[in-house]
C-alpha cells in the first residue's frame, strides 16, 4: 500500500513546491497564473491519488476525498482563468510586451 502512496504523495509535494517557486520567481501575472493553475492542480491530483492508497483510509472518507478532488480540479483552473482574464481585459501587459503588442 504505502509503496504506491509515498511516491505519489512525494511527487505531488514536488509539484506543489514547483508551483510555489513559480509563484514567487516568475516575472509577471500571466506566467505566475500558469504556474499556479497547472502544477498546483496536478500536485493536488497526485497527493489525493496517494491518499487513496493509504491503509488507514475508510470508504466514507474516500468518497469525501473524491468530492474534494473533483471540486478542486474544476474550481482551481477556473479561478485562475477568471483572474487572468480580468487582468488581460484591464490592460495588464505580459512580460517584455511592448506598447502595441497586445
Amino acid at each position: 500500500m504505502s509503496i504506491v502512496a509515498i511516491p505519489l504523495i512525494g511527487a505531488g509535494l514536488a509539484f506543489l513546491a514547483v508551483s510555489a517557486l513559480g509563484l514567487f520567481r516568475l516575472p509577471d501575472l500571466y506566467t505566475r497564473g500558469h504556474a499556479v493553475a497547472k502544477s498546483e492542480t496536478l500536485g493536488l491530483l497526485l497527493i489525493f491519488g496517494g491518499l487513496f492508497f493509504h491503509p488507514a483510509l475508510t470508504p466514507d472518507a474516500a468518497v469525501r476525498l473524491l468530492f474534494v478532488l473533483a471540486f478542486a480540479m474544476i474550481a482551481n483552473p477556473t479561478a485562475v482563468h477568471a483572474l487572468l482574464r480580468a487582468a488581460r481585459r484591464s490592460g495588464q501587459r505580459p512580460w517584455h510586451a511592448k506598447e502595441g503588442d497586445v
Partner: protein
Amino acid sequence: MTGGYPSEVVRVVCTVLSPFIAVFGLYVIAHGHYGPGGGFAGGVIVAVGAILPRMTLAEDLAYRAIPSITGPLAGGIGMLLFILCGVAPMLAGGAFLDYEALAIAGMEAARARYLGILAVEIAVGLAVFGALVLIYDVLAGRTD
C-alpha cells in the same frame, strides 16, 4: 451585477458548481453539533451557492432561480426560529436555550439538548443565509 459574466468557462463552471456548494453548506449546518462546522459557516456556504449565479449569470436568470425576496424571507424565518428555540425553554421554566427544561415525554435530557442544538443551528444557518443574500442584493441594487 452587469448581467452575464463574459467568460463562458466561468459561467458554466459556476452554474454547475453552485448547487453542489449549497448542498455542501447544508451538510456543514447539519454536521455542526458534533463536528467542525455549524450554522454560521454553513449559512455562509449556502449563501455562496445563491450569490455565485447572481455574479456570473444573466440577471433575470439568476433572480428567477433565487428571487430577491429570499434574503429577507429566509433571514426573518431564521431569526424567528432562533428566538422560538431560545424562548421555549424559558416558558417551560428553564434558562434561555436550556433545552433540558422542555422535559419532552420519553426523551432524555441529552437527546433534547442534541435536537435543540440542531434546531438552533438550522435557524442560525437560515438567518445567515438570508442576511448574506440580502447584503448582496442591497449592494447590487436589486431589493425589489
